């Protein structure tokens, strides 16, 4: 069996970390103010005048940040593998199971809260958009000018980092590609990226914020599903560890008893 090539593995870990950092930091990478005149035409089309001109801030959206909910899982998995290199085998299995249990519970709870946040925001957006014309103007000011180009640039960067992650992981240990769970995780991450890009491109720019919120909801659900998978795996791992400990303790007791008899 080939050895793990540590430099490539460290590169994979770094890429996974960068992916999550870029996604969380997307708030500072995209958005910005638009000239006040941007709203004048749209307001005129609605038969409404906005004397102030409308100070428009481009929305940062939710989906880019919510991608981190999915991409934090590969980071966690390679992090566990990395820690496994440092810990002795006897401790590694138990530590991994307990860490996975805690992390999966945190992931599920966080995803549920963020799912509710995205859902409430989606309801608010749709309600305002349909509350013609004052609500529609409010929607236009707050969410009507999604920075699709900037979001696409961030998504492209994230996609590149994900390919680097996948490539360096395989370069570190080609047998990783035989790990179906890991492959599914990477595929889920790539599909999530594609989904967000597709939903951002699907509708005219005025409506992108609504599909962005829908993408965020889908991402939160994907994260919950993966969180449940991790949770079940961690529970089985802990049960196996407890059984192994109990049986080894029983073995020791039997050996001691036999020694006493003989």
């Amino acid at each position: 069996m080939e050895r793990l090539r540590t430099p490539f593995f460290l590169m994979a870990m770094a890429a996974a970390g960068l992916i999550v950092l870029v996604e969380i930091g997307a708030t500072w990478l995209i958005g910005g103010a638009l000239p006040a005149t941007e709203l004048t035409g749209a307001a005129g089309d609605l038969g409404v005048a906005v004397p102030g001109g409308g100070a428009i801030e481009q929305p940062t959206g939710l989906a880019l940040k919510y991608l981190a909910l999915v991409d934090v899982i590969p980071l966690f998995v390679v992090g566990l593998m990395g820690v496994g290199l440092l810990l002795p085998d006897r401790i590694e299995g138990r530590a991994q199971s307990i860490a996975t249990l805690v992390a999966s519970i945190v992931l599920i709870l966080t995803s549920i809260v963020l799912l509710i946040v995205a859902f409430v925001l989606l309801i608010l957006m749709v309600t305002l958009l349909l509350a013609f014309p004052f609500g529609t103007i409010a929607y236009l000011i707050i969410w009507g000018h999604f920075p699709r180009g900037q979001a696409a640039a961030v998504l492209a960067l994230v996609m590149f980092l994900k390919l680097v992650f996948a490539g360096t992981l395989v370069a570190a240990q080609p047998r990783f590609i035989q790990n179906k769970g890991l492959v599914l995780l990477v595929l889920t991450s790539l599909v999530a990226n594609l989904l967000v890009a597709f939903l951002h491109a699907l509708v005219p720019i005025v409506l992108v914020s609504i599909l962005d919120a829908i993408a965020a909801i889908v991402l939160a659900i994907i994260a919950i599903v993966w969180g449940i998978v991790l949770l079940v795996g961690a529970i089985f791992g802990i049960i196996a560890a407890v059984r192994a400990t109990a049986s080894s303790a029983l073995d020791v007791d039997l050996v001691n008893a036999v020694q006493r008899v003989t």
Partner: protein
Amino acid sequence: MIRLRIPIWSRLTRVQRILLGVVALIVALFVLTVGLGGNRADVNLAEPPAFVERLGSLFGGPPAVEPADVGGDCIAPDPSPSASPAAGPSPSVEPSPSAGPSPAAGGQAPDGRRRVVLGTCVLTVAGRDVDVRELRLTAAGPVRVEAPVPRSDETATKELAAGDELKVSVDSGGASITLVCMAANICAVNVG
């Protein structure tokens, strides 16, 4: 002749090769999606696309402003409190100082909604813990409505002709809505 040899490829199973193909497909679709630049069609927001309408009907529209939440200094005493006992304190309007008193000020139509605007009137809607509510106004004469844009510092104005109906969206912070008669000193608006 140089022969390209991919060591991993030969060791992969059929399923793994398919998975690698799927990765390539995802990347190709991503490049295509981003490369095309997205949908640039114009949208008539007065008639939003069907999927937005469907989402709207799924979530339900915003609730109406409670009559008790509509008030302000311009409210005239309700001439017949028993006319709409379920409505509570009725919405009303403030006569402008120059317009002078009128017997019709603060009057109520048989449908329980009508109020008379004299010159300029400011309706105040109290804040509530509801993201968006709607106040329905129906103009009986030409009226200009000035209202704050929900969740924004901006103010928007809309001119109504006789018979036009307007739903003013109000956020949780409440609003001050100014009604100005355009054609004469006296005009009527149905509120609520």
